[in-house]
């Protein structure tokens, strides 16, 4: 290498949702920006996420992760000021603000090349994401024991099934989502094992795997793994109220894969190297950089965004990316009124974290804020805005045209122990999701089995009749008024939680019609007979497929119309195409 390090205006490390969003802001502001990622494709965790995302429209809710990654990539690629180096791992961050990058060129037919390069800039956005945590138990080093993200990479990026039969450890969102994706890839999921007495992930994700027949064993953990050369089975056992294993409750589960979804820790090495003040905050995943609302660390000009600043979600990572990018651009003198431009994003972030599911993050950030008090004076990049002056996160939508507007769910609703420990709603919860009896007889209506307050609103955006009202707060449960519902099932296709169904009790004297979301192969066709499954995946009868509504894009959720014996329409929530190819046509 000759000469000094290459100079840029800004360097972004990590091309996940956080880094790409930061690069978009910097590039738009005209900063010559270098984006570095060690992967061969930009997008971070998003490139392996086939499910639809939650959040609001601004964070592309209802869009699948892989698609969000493509959109972010295109946005950044269109900015001439941004340069991206892939296959480029940042190895070190030195005190003179020079970073070393290990670059690899490995194109087919060419000789492989590896070299080091040095780059520098006055401002940095470090957005390296997080790494999966390991779990201690005997034989946890056997081949076949993978991080859930690794299994996801193998199947969703490289098209290779991780195995035949999987035990998943962890019923947080990652464990639930990866279990569902394993099923979609044609892998059996024997059980999801969760040490806590309640399911930590979104209950709509839990319901999806439950109705596919996957048991969720809360208050259980792995005792040991078995196998000689590779994993052959797992013994799990129950934990008592004090989290102590109960001898005699051991269960052996045959499996060739054990997936660990037991949490993520920020990939913070570069932050330590850069000399950023760090704090240990378990709620945020471990060691995180002390930072203020503007996402600047204790080292002036070094900003953070996304999971590395505290493990959260892609929606929050994108918003933080915008804020860090704007902050860094302001540091360069490229953004004039930072407080004003950042206000919308800050309000958005606050609204994402406002509900019960954001409670842990809020607690973690409060702890961190204790540490930032002394720092605020030294970070002039942005002054805090008061929430009152911030514009509302989403413009209030026009109220539905009818007289009885849907009422939003009341905040602070308590969920049944059955729902939170098994993923199956209790009878009282199901009752509350049904319209009055006279309305049910009048024609098709939607049943929305979304009982938990989560930051999500695509059902409202999908509904054109106003039956699902606007969300005054994105964390509330949907407000549904059956009087306005025409049974169009647009909500069924749009809901990322697959929690919406449509029922028509008048289909025939003895049969009802059920419209349900179905994201598996093979898809049945009209005329096929399919198995009818209940909310636990148990077989409860058979039905006839009347129609399959699907769009040309594989990214949309197909909606299957199936006949159901009248008395079972409240029970059936899934179908299975019998093993005989494609189901028997009648």
């Amino acid at each position: 290498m000759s000469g000094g390090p290459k100079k840029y205006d800004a360097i972004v490390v990590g091309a996940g949702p956080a880094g790409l969003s930061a690069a978009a802001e910097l590039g738009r502001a005209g900063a010559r920006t270098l984006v570095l990622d060690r992967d061969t494709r930009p997008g971070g965790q998003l490139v392996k996420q086939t499910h639809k995302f939650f959040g609001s429209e601004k964070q592309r809710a209802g869009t699948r992760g892989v698609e969000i990654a493509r959109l972010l990539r295109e946005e950044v690629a269109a900015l001439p000021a941004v340069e991206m180096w892939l296959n480029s791992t940042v190895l070190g961050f030195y005190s003179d603000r020079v970073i070393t990058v290990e670059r690899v060129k490995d194109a087919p037919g060419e000789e492989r090349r590896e070299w080091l390069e040095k780059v520098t800039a006055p401002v940095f956005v470090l957005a390296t994401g997080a790494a999966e945590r390991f779990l201690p138990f005997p034989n946890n080093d056997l081949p076949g024991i993978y991080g859930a993200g690794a299994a996801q990479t193998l199947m969703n990026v490289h098209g290779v099934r991780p195995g035949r039969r999987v035990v998943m450890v962890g019923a947080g969102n990652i464990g639930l989502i990866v279990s569902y994706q394993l099923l979609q890839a044609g892998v059996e999921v024997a059980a999801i094992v969760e040490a806590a007495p309640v399911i930590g992930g979104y209950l709509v994700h839990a319901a999806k795997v439950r109705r596919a027949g996957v048991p969720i064993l809360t208050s259980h953990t792995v005792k040991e793994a078995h196998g000689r050369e590779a994993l052959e089975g797992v013994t799990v056992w129950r934990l008592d109220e004090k989290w102590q294993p109960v001898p005699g409750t051991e269960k052996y589960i045959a499996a060739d894969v054990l997936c660990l979804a037991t949490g993520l820790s920020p990939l913070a090495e570069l932050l330590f190297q850069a000399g950023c003040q760090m704090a240990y905050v378990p709620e945020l995943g471990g060691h995180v950089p002390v930072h203020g609302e503007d996402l600047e660390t204790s080292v002036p000009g070094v900003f953070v965004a996304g999971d590395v600043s505290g493990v959260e979600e892609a929606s929050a990572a994108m918003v933080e990316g915008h804020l860090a990018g704007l902050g860094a651009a302001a540091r360069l003198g490229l953004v004039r009124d930072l407080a004003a431009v950042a206000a919308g994003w800050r309000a958005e972030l606050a609204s994402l974290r406002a509900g019960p599911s954001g409670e842990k993050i809020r607690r973690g950030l409060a702890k961190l804020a204790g540490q930032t008090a002394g720092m605020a004076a030294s970070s002039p990049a942005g002054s805090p805005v008061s929430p009152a002056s911030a514009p509302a996160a989403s413009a209030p939508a026009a109220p539905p045209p009818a007289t009885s507007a849907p009422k939003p769910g009341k905040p602070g609703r308590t969920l049944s122990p059955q729902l939170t420990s098994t993923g199956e709603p209790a009878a009282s919860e199901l009752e509350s999701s049904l319209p009055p009896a006279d309305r049910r007889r009048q024609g098709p209506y939607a049943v929305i089995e979304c009982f938990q307050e989560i930051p999500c609103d695509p059902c409202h955006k999908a509904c054109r009749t106003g039956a699902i009202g606007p969300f005054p707060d994105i964390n509330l449960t949907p407000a549904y008024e059956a009087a306005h519902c025409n049974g169009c099932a647009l909500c069924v296709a749009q809901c990322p939680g697959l929690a919406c169904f449509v029922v028509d009790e008048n289909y025939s004297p003895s049969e009802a019609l059920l419209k349900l979301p179905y994201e598996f192969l093979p898809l049945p066709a009209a005329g096929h007979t399919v198995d009818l499954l209940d909310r636990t995946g148990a077989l409860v009868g058979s039905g006839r497929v009347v129609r399959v509504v699907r769009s040309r894009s594989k990214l949309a959720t197909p909606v299957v119309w199936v006949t159901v014996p009248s008395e079972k329409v409240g029970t059936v929530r899934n179908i299975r195409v019998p093993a005989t190819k494609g189901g028997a046509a009648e």
Partner: protein
Amino acid sequence: MRIQDHPILDFSKGRKVRFWFEDRELEGYEGEPIAAALHAAGVRVLSESPVRHRPRGFFCAIGNCSSCLMTVDGRPNVRVCVEALHEGMRVQKQRGGRGDLA
């Protein structure tokens, strides 16, 4: 182990290539990680642990954890979960862990 049909994704693969794992000739797709090609061929044991010689596979699949170090074309300590496969590659188990520490 390859997914032929997926409800949401389409996989675009490179051309088919042959490579060697120990003394077996296997097939994979050019450009995919070596570990993915091995896994698709049913190979899950990638190395042996340094001290107790226990079998090891990959864990993180994104180049973080070094659980998948192998010798590739004579180069030791290659993280096969992120290293691209090429025609004719020779991939070998590393006995005794990291080649430089063995």
